[in-house]
């Protein structure tokens, strides 16, 4: 049987290679597959936010996808301008590629009427999509128009092997303090102070006990922390009651206490003096040099820095995430919320001449056959089947982490297309995981020796388990709600209060001894003048709407 398939596939490949010489239009004639005429369609795809060349259909996996779906993609990516400029130019001209991932600019395209609503297509043709998305479909409705424009790829992810966000502390500090976790803010800074006193320099460089990004785009890493310290997950500038009422915490006691603690630490010389007058690059450089004992951030931001520390064999300086809470807080939520988020994803545009064909292709991308290809790769090359179980050999394990190989092979590059949840609980109908990174084999093989010591220290088998798992939420992330253009006053209030906070973070944390409360009052007055909490009612309304519609 297998042999037969491969013979047919070879025939298709030769035929499609031959037909490739013809005009690349929509009508390129296809090959005989199982006796019937199959047409190869070509769709153009524009991926916003993709700034490096992308040629999905010309990879080995991509070619197989074309065989199964009968669709070839002509990929275009973002060059030169920023997303907003491109979106404006494209909508002004009214010319789009057949398929489009609008990334952060969905609203612009939607308002220009560039996107084809998918609701009816899903009803009629979306067999695979309905199977994998199920109840999530109603969460994908656009808040403004009530239509579905894209099948969001932002779903449950593969089993994480590291916490997503947290207070990152160097391994040597954790080890010296007998692997602490869930510390109070006071204990946390006491630990840093003590360690810095005992070890004033690291490799000849002066130690920075606590640092943070403080640049224009990074100050949310300070201003967003107070709610986390109080045990709430990151839902943007507001935290939400169980009934969905939004509370802006900019001026809360939490914020006051956190900034005050940072101010105290600053007076003791424990805070990076350049925190607010350096670029993000300089901050990350400090992390890579191993002189920063602790900071708050996300793992995905510092993967390069960790790799650099590993290359320098500075394993003791690699940071690991722990949680820090206010006294009396029982549960922490540093890992945030697990949800589907509407927004980016592949949309069909009004320029597409064959929207039904395009949708059928999107649905076909969701079929198990294609999913095995795009998530796992090609059998024999990227994975092995033993007794019907998909697994990885030693060599294939290495390929999973090799970004260059994945790009060449075309595996794992299809994230923007509709796909199942990728977590360990979602499985193909034959019982296999949907993604190789869920294999316990992969997880256990991934940790390096210095990480295994941390695993033993904390008595866990997965570093992700050091913090509470991602929470489910009745209204999704919350931070993905944005104020529409129809509410310019609220937009203005949000922007201004954000800018005021950015400015005062620096003033508050650098305040001289005894002046903190004065600066804080000044900050409160300016925020109130900018009507910082006028947006609460809008967020409340939107979250309550979601709670009603989604549950």
């Amino acid at each position, binding site marked *: 049987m297998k042999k037969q398939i491969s013979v047919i596939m070879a025939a298709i490949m030769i035929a499609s290679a031959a037909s490739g010489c013809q005009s690349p239009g929509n009508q390129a004639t296809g090959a005989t597959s199982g006796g019937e005429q199959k047409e190869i369609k070509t769709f153009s795809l524009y991926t916003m936010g993709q700034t490096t060349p992308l040629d999905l259909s010309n990879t080995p996996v991509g070619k197989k996808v074309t065989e199964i779906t009968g669709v070839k993609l002509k990929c275009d990516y973002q060059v030169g301008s920023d997303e907003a400029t491109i979106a*404006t130019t494209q909508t002004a001209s009214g010319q789009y590629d057949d398929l489009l991932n609008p990334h952060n600019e969905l609203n612009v395209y939607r308002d220009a009427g560039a996107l084809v609503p998918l609701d009816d297509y899903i009803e009629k043709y979306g067999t695979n999509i309905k199977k994998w998305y199920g109840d999530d479909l109603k969460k994908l409705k656009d808040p403004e128009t009530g239509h579905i424009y894209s099948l969001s790829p932002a779903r449950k992810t593969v089993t994480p092997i590291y916490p997503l966000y947290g207070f990152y502390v160097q391994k040597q500090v954790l080890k010296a303090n007998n692997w602490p976790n869930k510390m109070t803010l006071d204990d946390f800074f006491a630990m840093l102070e003590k360690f810095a006193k005992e070890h004033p320099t690291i490799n000849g460089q002066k130690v920075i006990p606590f640092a943070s990004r403080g640049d224009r785009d990074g100050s949310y890493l300070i201003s967003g922390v107070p709610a986390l310290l109080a045990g709430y997950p990151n839902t943007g500038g507001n935290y939400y009651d169980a009934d969905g009422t939004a509370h802006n915490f900019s001026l809360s006691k939490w914020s006051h206490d956190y900034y005050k603690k940072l101010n105290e630490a600053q007076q003791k010389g424990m805070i990076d003096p*350049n925190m607010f007058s350096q670029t993000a690059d300089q901050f990350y450089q400090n992390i890579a040099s191993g002189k920063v004992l602790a900071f708050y951030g996300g793992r995905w931001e510092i993967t390069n820095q960790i790799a650099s520390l590993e290359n320098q064999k500075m394993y003791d300086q690699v940071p690991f995430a722990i949680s820090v809470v206010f006294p009396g807080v029982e549960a922490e939520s540093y890992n945030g919320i697990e949800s589907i988020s509407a927004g980016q994803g592949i949309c069909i545009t009004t320029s597409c001449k064959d929207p039904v064909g395009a949708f059928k292709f999107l649905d076909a991308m969701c079929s198990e056959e294609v999913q095995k290809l795009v998530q796992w790769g090609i059998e024999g090359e990227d994975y092995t089947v033993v007794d019907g179980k998909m697994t990885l050999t030693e060599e294939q394990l290495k390929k999973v982490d090799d970004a260059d190989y994945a790009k060449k092979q075309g595996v794992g590059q299809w994230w923007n297309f509709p796909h199942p949840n990728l977590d360990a609980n979602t499985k193909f109908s034959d019982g296999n995981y949907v993604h190789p990174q869920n294999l316990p084999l992969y997880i256990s093989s991934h940790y390096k020796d210095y990480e295994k010591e941390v695993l033993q220290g904390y008595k866990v088998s997965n570093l992700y388990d050091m913090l509470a798992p991602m929470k489910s939420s009745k209204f999704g992330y919350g931070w993905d709600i944005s104020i529409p253009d129809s509410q310019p006053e609220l937009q203005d209030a949000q922007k201004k209060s954000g800018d005021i906070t950015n400015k005062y973070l620096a003033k508050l944390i650098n305040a001289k001894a005894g002046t903190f409360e004065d600066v804080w009052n000044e900050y409160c007055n300016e925020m109130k003048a900018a009507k910082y909490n006028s947006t609460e009612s809008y967020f409340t309304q939107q979250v309550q709407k979601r709670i009603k519609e989604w549950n």
Partner: protein
Amino acid sequence: MIKAEVSPKLENGSVALMPKKKSFFASLVRQKDLVLITLPFAALLILFNYVPLWGWIMAFQNYKPGLGIFNSKWVGFKNFYDLFHDSYFFLGIRNTLGISLLKLVTGYLGSITLALLINEIKNLAFKKTVQTISYLPHFVSWVVVSGLVYTCLSTDGGVVNEILMKLHIISEPFNFMGTPKLFWGVMAGSDLWKEIGWNSIIYLAAMSGINPDIYEAADIDGAGRFRKIFSITLPGILPTIKILLILSVGNLLTVGFEQTYLLSNNMVIDYSQTLELYVYNYGMGMGRYSFATAAGIFNSVVALILVTTFNKLSKTISGESAF
């Protein structure tokens, strides 16, 4: 805007040669060759400098890219009202003018002084080397220069702090980039470093146009170096200085977006939010294209008023003018 003013002068100049009261069309026919030569440039000028002004209509609309100019809602002067009722806007004007004037003064004094100094060097090889080195930074992008500035002024081993500490002027590193009131100085200083050599080229060119006989005569009369600088070189390049000054007055409201954006940070935002940055943050950044256009119109009108007044002023006082 300024380029638009230069070419009419050429046409005026040639028209002035004609006997007066001659009909416009007659002279047009007589100068058809000249007219033909300038036609492509006039067309370019109209295409790129005047046709886009059509977009100013946006300022009176609530413009949405998807709807286009024809379908967007008309809102009258609302965008201007919003602009003039925003305290940040006036903060922006203050910062823009502050930085601009500081840049104007340091830039002019610096490049004229450098040109005078280079002009006094007699060794040709050395002169060329100094000149080349001094204008090289002009070709470096602000992205790189801002990185240099941040590194040099860093409290963590930055070269400026190191020198000041070795000289015992300060006892601990000073946070230059984090001191709001120093930001204008940082802007002017970094601009001076980058542009001083480039800006001095035009003065050097003007100096080489001064008749050497005058210097010889001054030598015979026993004038020293400084006497020659103040009595011959400076008066010789005065017309150039004046024209450049008039032209740069029109740019008073544009500080240089890249430089401001890259050098500013949250700590100094009160002194670094210039008009351009304000328009970027509160106009384009929030998708308020109409609002940004309104600010742009304000900018253009003020620049136009500044240039014409200054030109007039200069004409009446010294008879020197750009147009």
